[in-house]
């Protein structure tokens, strides 16, 4: 009785309801293909794991797909802002969840025997940089990250919703805050786990 069902009710559902968010399919695909690789590249530096970076990128696109049409006008800026924010949240959550005080101490003090000490130290430094970044105000961390990835001041202003003329000033401040946060972690590495958020 397929016709019976479809005739009476599917008509109602098919025609009576919206077709979804309203993204023209091709347009969304084009945006995806334009920005995906770039986003994953940036996110990879932030989270240090390609799979995780791809997940965050995909989540950002899903959010974009569902977002109101206002976001479509500047999908690039919207994506940069959303994805970097998700990455910051993820790093912060990871700091809280994964690193107990003892684990952090262990990572610094007892490098696994099989690894050269250099490697262990470098990994630790990488983690501290990431942790320092995550402790900044999100907007500062986003600004630093996106600038380090080569976005122009205009692109930064679009993505982070600031005036292009303010970018230099805010960037300088963010760099100062970044350095300060890193120095504090360097002086007291356990802070990278027993952080303020706890």
């Amino acid at each position, binding site marked *: 009785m397929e*016709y019976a069902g479809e005739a*009476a009710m599917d*008509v109602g559902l098919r025609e009576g309801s919206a077709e979804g968010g309203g993204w023209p399919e091709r347009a969304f695909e084009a945006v*995806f293909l334009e920005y995906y690789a770039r986003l994953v*590249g940036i996110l990879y530096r932030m989270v240090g794991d390609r799979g995780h970076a791809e997940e965050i990128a995909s989540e950002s696109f899903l959010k974009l797909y569902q977002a109101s049409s206002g976001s479509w006008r500047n999908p690039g800026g919207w994506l940069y802002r959303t994805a970097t924010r998700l990455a910051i949240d993820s790093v912060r959550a990871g700091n809280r969840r994964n690193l107990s005080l003892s684990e952090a101490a262990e990572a610094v003090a007892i490098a696994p025997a099989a690894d050269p000490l250099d490697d262990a130290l470098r990994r630790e430094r990488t983690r501290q940089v990431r942790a320092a970044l995550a402790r900044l105000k999100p907007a500062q961390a986003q600004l630093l990250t996106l600038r380090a990835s080569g976005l122009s001041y205009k692109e930064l202003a679009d993505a982070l919703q600031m005036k292009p003329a303010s*970018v230099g*000033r805010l960037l300088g401040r963010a760099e100062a805050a970044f350095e300060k946060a890193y120095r504090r972690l360097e002086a007291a590495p356990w802070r990278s786990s027993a952080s303020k958020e706890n």
Partner: protein
Amino acid sequence: MCIPDGTLRARLDGELGQAELAGTEEHLRTCARCRERAAAVAERAGRAQALFSELGPEADLSPADAAAAYARLEHGRSDRIVDSRWRRLFPARLTPAWGAVAAVALVAVLATSAPTRSVAQRLLGLFRVKAVVAVPMERDFGGDFTAEKRDVLQQVLADSMVTLVESRRVPVAAREEATKLAGFDVQLPALRQDQPQLAVITEHKVEFTVSAERVRTLLSVVGRTDLNLPAGLDGAKVLVDAPAGVMARYGECPDWPRLRGQAAQQLASCMVVVQSPGPTVVTTPELDLTGVAEFGLQLTGMTPEQAHTFAQTVDWTSTAAIPIPRNTVSSETVSINGTPGILLTGARFRERTDIPPSWVVLWVKGGMMYSVTGFGDTATAVPLAESLR
């Protein structure tokens, strides 16, 4: 006047306009303090950059990687509407049993030939259909039921079911052949003189197991987390067996999804008669069918009290409840040669006011379910249905 830090910082990045840059350089030549500050800004930027380099280079993805990622996203298209909470709950993807509720609550009876076809066709659970009853959906899934949501539900229903016997459509030349293949006497409307296209839709049998967790997820999709699950639902096994049926198409009938492109005058001649023995639904004995019915009725928008009262009036072991989206489909009770049935009238197509609304007459007689579908004047519906012989 001295240069602000922000300008000095922008200068490093080559982001100053020509005039501003010239002015800045001019000033720096004459102002030692600003030169010092410029150096300090540059050093700090350099240190921050050095720190950043600890993070290593960016991941280098090719366009092919992006295309592959898009394909994955497309493949999981139905996940789109599922918010991230759920994706964390079901990391792999929407796996079986997820929509079994819907299947229990809205078991496919109308869609005897293919239970996974459409959410709208899912009906309340029962054992063997002897009657049909229309259940107006106050809160039909229509309002906020986007194509994506429907995709999710359909995917989930498809995922949750194990098809034991897959239905096929077998075209046949004549009524006698259809009768022989389907195993019952095929009836055709005497009011139509033209030859129908006949097809036998063979038996379809599916089985699924309900998981309470998936049910709750499904409820979230339809925005009804307020509902309590009926007792015995979790883990209930359900088997739906839709016997072979016969479809007779008269006139110029469209392939349904392409209806938009169909000329109105062609549709006027279209009529479809479908008949099949009522499907059987077998569930585990612990499952309280009246409870499931109440649940399903609340899902369609009744208050708990209304659902309870209504559920008591129906023998759920033998009645197919057909959810009617109230805003797009209207229903009325009709008599087909003395047998009670329902007449459903569909809404018009939004953009195609030239296409007449569709109607369906449904009734069950002697264990057989019948439906007659047409377009346009509903006054012809009952006489056509009554002319079956």
